[in-house]
Each structure stands twice: as structure tokens, then as C-alpha cells.
């Protein structure tokens, strides 16, 4: 039986070109709308940083928007706006994406401006100083946002002594230390065609394709010097962690345990396991803790993959007085899940949801473009997309129960709470370690 009557996804046609300088370009044509998007994925993120220059990649990427050899930051903002384009810069844990989109009316100028931003950033002293100041202010202000702060703190707990234990923008000490010359060095080393993918999607003509190729072939390649220290999760006896935030009217709760990287044969099985456990509104976590107990507005789990490792994460919040009740219930649900496994009915529902919603992830040419770069970055064959339905369909209850038993290693799980200190008595016996 085919799930939801679906057999195989029909991918929109795309063209793959590798330039002499090593840049891999995906062209995906869609003439229905007169717009184009260019996205550059550069294989550099926090994983490439050292502890004494934390945040250098975030700083470098952010500075691309702050001026080129031709325009200062205000002029560049005006140029982008007057062409009706959006520039987006997303420095991530493993890679950074810089993208621009706009109407075909201005596509040639947009390509020129994009290349100017990428190839000729000015990294002016004044701009470096300005962005550093902004980051330092943001580091302080993030304390106002309990959800965001809790996400940062659970990483601090999980990734000890690794750049991932800090937010992508680094910390106060490292940001102050980073010099302009460090930024230029970082840029020159990593922002290279042989370390990047480019996806061009939208209303493409041959002229536009040639224009992109002509512009990007001029980008000189270079041997990438990188030294990534493989990270392994450190086992520790500490299980509970707390950060006290005065005046907080809710407790933010996070639970996390180690998983494998994205490129792993059990990935799809874990996604199904996650869907049933905490993926949606009828998940076990949501049914019990939100719908039956009324203890939160939102609770969910997710599988987070990075290049070298992954984590299984649970996140929620509750009023201060029910902090312990929610924490205990999460633990109970995890234990039950490992003990009982899933039912055939749960599996069928999860399969239906994952297959039925799959076309949405490839609905626009921009989303297909991102998927192609993402899969290639993780060394995963594009057959993943073609075979998605087939691979979901063949999963059995036993497959899912096996991965739950194998990967839900609760002795490695860390429990983090961000709360007002009025909850101290509730968690006293857990003897939590205070996070600074």
C-alpha cells in the first residue's frame, strides 16, 4: 500500500555545475514567478572556531552586510533596499548561509551586488568596532529572554569545553579579543569557492545563468586550512543543572542527550520515534503534560543534527510551582517510552504525517535548493529525497523500538531548569549544579 497514495516525489529539474575554482552551483528554474534567489552555503561555522576566538565566524558573516570597497553600511543598505532585495546572513554551527532574493527586474544588478558583498567586504575598523559593540549588548540583553537563554544554557551543559557550549556570537571575553586582522584571516581562509555551494533558483534565463557563472568563476580558490577537533560527549555524573533568573514567573525546562550525526543510517527511524514521542500535538509528551495535566502551553522534542554529532532535545516551560511535576513527568514518559516502545497504530499515524507533509519541504524552488546543498554538505545522496516515501513505508515497529532502546540513553541525559529561586525547595533533593 502506498502511504497517502504517494509513491515517489517528483523533484523539480535542477542542473549541477562545478566551476574550475571548485564552486558547485545548483541551478533550479521556476518561471512561474519573476523572482530569483541566490544562496551561498559556506562550509564554516562554530565547529571551525577555537576557544580563544569564539564568535569569529558570526562576526565575520555579520560584517559582510556592513560595507564593501564601494559602499559603506548605510549606502549598502540603501542599495539593497532600492533594488527590492532581501539579504539574509545565517552563521550556523556547521555552515553559514548568505542569501539574496529579489525580482528578475533587478536580477543582473542583484548578482553584481551579491558578488560585491561576498568578494569585497571592507571590514572597516569602525564597522568591526560597531558590530562588536552590538554583539556585546546582545549578550547582555539575551538575559531578558528566558526561552533563548535556556537554549543557550543547555548547550553550555551539553558541549563542555567546545565552541558549541557558547552561543554562535561567542562570549564577552573572546569578542573583545578578536582583531580586524583575525576576521580578515578567517574570511580569506574559509570564504572560498572550493569551500562553498551556490544555489540559484527562480526565473532563470540562459543569460542569467551565464552571468552567475561569469561572476563566480572569478572568485579565486585557495587551499582551506582547517583544524576541527572531533568532539565526543563527556560522560559525567552531573545530571541536573539550574540557572536562577530573578523574577521569572515561569520555569524553562530543557532535557538533552547525545545522538549521532545527520549522516547515519538510523536517522529516519529516529525521526519517526521523535514524531511519536514529542513531535506534534498528539505526541505522548503533549498529550500527557499539556492536554491531560494542563501544565504547559507547549512541549515538544526534536532531533538536532550537526556535522559531527547530534542531540535529542526536549523543551517546555511551566509556572514556577509545577516545575518539579513537569520534570518528573518528562522522566516518566522517557522511561515508559523505552520500556513499552511504540504501537503499530502510532507508527502508522507517524508515517502518514511524515509522508503527507513531505511535499511542503520541497514546495518552492528555494527550499529544494537548500535541501540539495544541505544533503551534499552532509555527504548524503539525493536519493534520500527520491526514496523518502519508500524508506518511510518499510519501517516496522521493531525498527523504531530498536532505535529507542539503542539511543535513548538516559544515563547520559542532562536536565536543565531556568527559574526564579523560589523553586529551590522543589528541586533541592536533585542536588542541581548551578550554571553561571
Amino acid at each position: 500500500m502506498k502511504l497517502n497514495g504517494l509513491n515517489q516525489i517528483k523533484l523539480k529539474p535542477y542542473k549541477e555545475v562545478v566551476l574550475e575554482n571548485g564552486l558547485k552551483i545548483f541551478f533550479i528554474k521556476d518561471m512561474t514567478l519573476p523572482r530569483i534567489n541566490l544562496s551561498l552555503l559556506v562550509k564554516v561555522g562554530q565547529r571551525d572556531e577555537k576557544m580563544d576566538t569564539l564568535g569569529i565566524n558570526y562576526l565575520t558573516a555579520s560584517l559582510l552586510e556592513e560595507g564593501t570597497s564601494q559602499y559603506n553600511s548605510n549606502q549598502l543598505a540603501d542599495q539593497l533596499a532600492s533594488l527590492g532585495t532581501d539579504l539574509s546572513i545565517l552563521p550556523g554551527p556547521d555552515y553559514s548561509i548568505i542569501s539574496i532574493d529579489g525580482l528578475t527586474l533587478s536580477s543582473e544588478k542583484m548578482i553584481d551586488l551579491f558578488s560585491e558583498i561576498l568578494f569585497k567586504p571592507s571590514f572597516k575598523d569602525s564597522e568591526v568596532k560597531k558590530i562588536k559593540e552590538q554583539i556585546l549588548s546582545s549578550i547582555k540583553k539575551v538575559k531578558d529572554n528566558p526561552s533563548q537563554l535556556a537554549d543557550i544554557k543547555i548547550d553550555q551543559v551539553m558541549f563542555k569545553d567546545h565552541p558549541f557550549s557558547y552561543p554562535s556570537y561567542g562570549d564577552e571575553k573572546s569578542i573583545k579579543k578578536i582583531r580586524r586582522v583575525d576576521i580578515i584571516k578567517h574570511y580569506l581562509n574559509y570564504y572560498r569557492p572550493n569551500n562553498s555551494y551556490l544555489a540559484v533558483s527562480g526565473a532563470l534565463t540562459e543569460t542569467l545563468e551565464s552571468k552567475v557563472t561569469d561572476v563566480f568563476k572569478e572568485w579565486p580558490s585557495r587551499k582551506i586550512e582547517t583544524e576541527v577537533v572531533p568532539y565526543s560527549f563527556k560522560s559525567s555524573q552531573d545530571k541536573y543543572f539550574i540557572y536562577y533568573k530573578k523574577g521569572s514567573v515561569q520555569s524553562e525546562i530543557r532535557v538533552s542527550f547525545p545522538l549521532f550525526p545527520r549522516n547515519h543510517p538510523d536517522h529516519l527511524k529516529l525521526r519517526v520515534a521523535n514524531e511519536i514521542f514529542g513531535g506534534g500535538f498528539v505526541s505522548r509528551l503533549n498529550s500527557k503534560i499539556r492536554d491531560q495535566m494542563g501544565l504547559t502551553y507547549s512541549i515538544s522534542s526534536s532531533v538536532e543534527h550537526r556535522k559531527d554529532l547530534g542531540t535529542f532535545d526536549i523543551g517546555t516551560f511551566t509556572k514556577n510551582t509545577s516545575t518539579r511535576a513537569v520534570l518528573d513527568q518528562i522522566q516518566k514518559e522517557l522511561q515508559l517510552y523505552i520500556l513499552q516502545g511504540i504501537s503499530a497504530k502510532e507508527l502508522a499515524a507517524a508515517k502518514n504525517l511524515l509522508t503527507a507533509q513531505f511535499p511542503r519541504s520541497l514546495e518552492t524552488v528555494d527550499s529544494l535548493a537548500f535541501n540539495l546543498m544541505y544533503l551534499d554538505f552532509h555527504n548524503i545522496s539525493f536519493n534520500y529525497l527520491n526514496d523518502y516515501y519508500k524508506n518511510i513505508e518499510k519501517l516496522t515497529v521493531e525498527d523504531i523500538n530498536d532505535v529507542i532502546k539503542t539511543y535513548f540513553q538516559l544515563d547520559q541525559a542532562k536536565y536543565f531548569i531556568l527559574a526564579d529561586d523560589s523553586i529551590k525547595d522543589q528541586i533541592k533533593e536533585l542536588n542541581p549544579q548551578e550554571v553561571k
Partner: protein
Amino acid sequence: MKTLFDIKIIRASLLFSCLFYSFFCFSQKKELAKINFTAQKYSLKNGLTVILYQDNTIPMVSYHTWYKVGSRDEYNGVTGAAHMLEHMMFKGSKKYSAQEFERILHENGITNNAFTTYDYTGFYQNLPSSKLELMMQLEVDRMSQLSLKEEDLLSEREVVKEERRWRVDNNPLMSLFELTMATVFKNHNYRNPVIGTMKDISNYTTDILRSFYQTYYVPNNAVLVLAGDFKLNEVKRLIEKYYGSLEAKPIAERIYKKEPLQTIQFNARMKKEVQGLSFNLAFQSVPQNHRDMFAMDLICQMLGGGSSSRLHKRLINDKQIATSSYCMHLNMQDQGVLSLHVSMKPGQTMEGALNVVYNEVYSVRNFLVKETELEKAKILSIKSLVDSLRTIDGKARALATSEITTGNHESLLSDIQNYQKVTPVEIKEVASKYLNQNQRSIVVLEAK
């Protein structure tokens, strides 16, 4: 489920994908747009408005059911009732018990959510096209025979309290927004939070919610929008089959409290555990569809829309005293609000930033803006509308919003032309009309 606010930096409005081509002409040739409108609209005998947009690109349908009821329809002591009812719509009907609705959707690969605003409440699903008839059965069932059981209300009320704590009480900037609305509006229900006060959330009864349900969740107060993979004749047959037998109910004329014209500056302050000061400088604006709405949108764009806006350049790039600044033009059916927000760097006082904001507002009121600046604002405003239409869900949402806020989805097709027509003289005139000292509110969030 059941998200609450739907606010964007500039007006969340709605156009059709085919408008791209008209926009294509706009910037270069200054021609008025040609619009090729392909959605079908009709009404059932019971008054249900139906809008269909066929798009067979992917095997999915976006299914939107929006009701013309929001927090402006509430009365003293029941703030947040429209939102609470939205939550209760997921707690089962006479046919399906609580949780069964969600379970059936999940088993059939359907995602589902809803939201409430000041003026309307929307429910939406994204489903495989093969499940369209099933979805229709479920949606008609809860439109006509919701259970509203006491025990469901007891648990869901706690969920909504958690939602309020999370969205507002534990979120300083949302607290600032809530105070801003209560400061700008002294009389109209827009002064009340959409989610309601904690006291009122604690006191709803099923009778109150049932009264809301019976009054407003009727076909003649609803708009059904389907976008995606279907055949028009077949979908029309199904709509008639499932919705056709529902009865229309007379809805008494709704009279909303009028907000008097502001004649003196309002000030309000609040203190929270925050690292730096933030403030909103807010002005009463025009109702949805007022002729000055487009000029106000563009003023908002020029002052605080993105990194090329005046406030961003002056406060973040030049003076470097703020961490963020933006403008929000919130268009509602009875009246709008234009709010300029500034978050200061920790340690910075408000004075310098406030003077910059005053100066920029003074400038748009007293001097003609440059054509190039206005053109930039127009292109950015139009692009943000167009960008929201890239998916079938975005198109369905756009259609539903346009229909429900104007009573005619096609009226929004003129938005692009209306933006195009705005001149520097009009910008100055409109700014002079609404952005005066005696019409502003200054609402401040500061550290305890």
C-alpha cells in the same frame, strides 16, 4: 496549536501571486498594474463565503476557516474569551470526543493550527489532497456541534494561563506591547489583550463560551478558503454536501465602542527585570481600508522598516545607542496603531534616542520626502506582500485575510496600485494629520 498574535513589522497584507507581473512593470515604467485574478468566490444559501484557488503544484490542500469574531467582541470581565473558545474548538464535538479530532488529523497526515486576533479567529490545516473530504466532515462537525464540556475547560484554562505567562508575563517586550495598546486606547476594546487578563482567564464558564460559539461560529459569519490540489467542480460539490445543510443564524448588529480622538500626549512606564531600556512611541492610526492606510504603511516603512530605514541608520549605525529599532503599523478594522519601537543598549538613557525619533517624525511631517526614498519604501512594501504568497498556505492565508478584513478579497488586488499612487505630498499631509505631539503615546519599559 492556537497561536495568538499575527503581527508583522509592517502591515500583514495580501495579494495574489499573479501580481508579481504587475509589480514587474511598476518600478521601471510607472505603469499601473494589470491584475489577472483567478480565485473563485461564491456564497452558499446559508451565507458561508467560499473562496477557491486551484493550484496543482503539490498534492496538498491548505484549508482555512476563519470567523469574524475577535477580542473586540468581548465585554468587561471576559477578556480573552474569543481566544479561549479557539482553544476549546480542539476539545471535541458531540461526534468526536476531546483529543479524537487531533488524533484523526494526525493519523491522516494532516497538520493543524489556529490563531486569534483583535478582529477575527482563524483555523487552518495542511492536508494531503486525498483527505479533503475527511477534513470537511471534521470541520463542519465542530462548526455545528462543539461539546464545550466543563472538564475540558478546566484543563485547557490552565494551558491558556501558561500561554499568557509565556507570551506576556515572562516576556518584557510583549508586556510593553500590551501596555502600549492599553495606553493608546482608552475606550475601544482594542485596549484589552487578545489573550485576556489572568483574572478573566480564571473565570470563564462554558456558558459564556457557548454564547460566543452560538452567536459567531455560524456559516454566515465565516469564510472558507481552500487553496491547492483539487478540481473545482468536485470541491464545490463536497462543500455543498457538507456545509449546505448548516443553518444561517441572524447576527445582531455589533456596535463597538468608539475611540475618541487623542488630544493630549499619553505617557506610561513599567519596570521589569531587564538589562536595558526600551520604548514605544505610538500613534492612533486609521482603520483598515482607510484611504490614508497606504501612506501610513509607507511612512512606517521609511521610518523603521529594515536596515535602510531612518531609525536604523541613525540609532544603530550612526549613533550606535540602540540594539534594535522598528516600526509596526497594526491595521485593525476599527482603528490602527503606528508604533515606533526602540531597544536601547544596556546603560544608555532614553533621551538621545527619543530626540532622534522626534526629529524623524517631525521631518516626515514638515518636509517632503525624497522620491528615491519613497520609491524604496514602495518596492519594499510590495515585495513583502508578494513574498508571503510563495506557498499555497500563504496564498490561502492571504485570501482569507483580505476577504475577512475588507469583505471583498478582490479589493486587495488594488493594493499595489494604491502604494504606487502615494506621493511625497501625500506622505507629508498624512503624517501631519496623525503624527502630532498631542496624538502620541510614550510607553517605556525600564529596569527595576
